[in-house]
Structure formats: C-alpha cells, structure tokens
C-alpha cells in the first residue's frame, strides 16, 4: 500500500478483555514505532522495532502491553486485561531510519475501554 495502515480503526471493549491492534507499515521501511495519544495529551512513545527485534521497549506502560513484528513487516500490539486508562488512540509509524528520521504515521486505532 501507499501508506501505513492500521486496523481496526475503532475498537470498543470491556474492561478486563484482551485486544490486538494491527499495523501494516510502508513497504521497505525497516523501522516501526507504536505511539499512543490520550485525550488532551501529545503522542507518547511505546515501542520501536528495527526489523523484527525491539531495541527499545521503554515506553510500554505495564507488562499488560506487548508487541511483536514478523517478517520485518506487520506488527501487532496486544493489550491484556484492558483497563479504562488504556483508552486512547494508538498510532503506528514507520520509517527508513535514515539521518532524516521522517516517520510516516497511520490513521490510528481509537480504543475505548468501558
């Protein structure tokens, strides 16, 4: 595809359920990032992949959050036992990781935990 795609675009779940969010990066982009934006806040870094490995997981807020990337392409962010404070827009970005570090963002997944 031409850009970064994410699915689903919206997800409503009940507290305690697990959710999976998917990201398809731009073809050829080796770096992939997950961020989230809570209401009224800036984008908060969660995790960074270079290929299939994650050298920086420092932004994951708790051990309920995990992510993987396979084939150097698609990535899945999993949130287990969701809590209401997990409600946010989850954004994925990809880049070629050059000196210019221009990251291209997907449209995001809006997660609402009831």
């Amino acid at each position, binding site marked *: 595809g031409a850009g970064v795609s994410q699915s689903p675009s919206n997800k409503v779940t009940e507290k305690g359920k697990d959710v999976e969010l998917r990201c398809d990066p731009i073809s050829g982009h080796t770096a992939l990032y997950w*961020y989230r934006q809570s209401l009224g806040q800036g984008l908060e870094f969660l995790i960074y992949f270079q290929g299939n490995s994650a050298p920086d997981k420092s932004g994951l807020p708790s051990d309920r959050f995990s992510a993987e990337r396979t084939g150097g392409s698609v990535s899945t962010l999993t949130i287990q036992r969701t809590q209401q404070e997990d409600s946010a827009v989850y954004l994925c970005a990809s880049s070629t990781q050059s000196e210019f*570090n221009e990251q291209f963002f997907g449209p995001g997944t809006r997660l609402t935990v009831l």
Partner: protein
Amino acid sequence: DQQVKQNSPSLSVQEGRISILNCDYTNSMFDYFLWYKKYPAEGPTFLISISSIKDKNEDGRFTVFLNKSAKHLSLHIVPSQPGDSAVYFCAASAIRGSNYKLTFGKGTLLTVNP
C-alpha cells in the same frame, strides 16, 4: 518530566498573516527536530524538519528556526491559509545516539480565520 514543550495550546490568526508556533526542549541530546500537522481522525503528517547543525530550514510557506543555545524552535507559516487549521506537534529525536523514537509536545491548535 516533559522534554518537549509547546506552551500555547491554541493560536488564532487571520488568513494571509504569519503564524508562529513555538516549541522548547530540555534534553541536550536531541539533535533532530520535526513538525507534524494533524487533522481530526487522521494520523500526524510530516511537515518539515531541521537538524541541529542548521539554524533554519525553509520549504515553501513553512520555515523552521532552531536556536540551540535557547533550546527553542519555531515554525513560521507565511502566508497562513484556512487549510492550515490543524493541530501542530513539535517532535525531537537523538539521532547521533541512535535513539530514533520521537518525543512529542502536546500540540498547538492553529485556527486560520478567512
């Protein structure tokens, strides 16, 4: 502790005038700075960037200025157009430290009035 700060939550300007959006940072390791534009229900779109070896970068109506000693950057939009109305995020990364994640400010909502 917020490392990238956008102290103005909103800015309103008349069409044709200059828009100036400001951003301050605290981390001296940051060496690459970007501005993103975000419309509602869309992911952020890259606008313009600047490396710490420069103090100005211009692209059409958009110019970014970097003052390293003051740890301050600004985005100038001249002339402003109604289509420029969006939330603008300032972001920073530490490329030399191989830290490619972006640290974002909370954003400034720009409204350009016809």
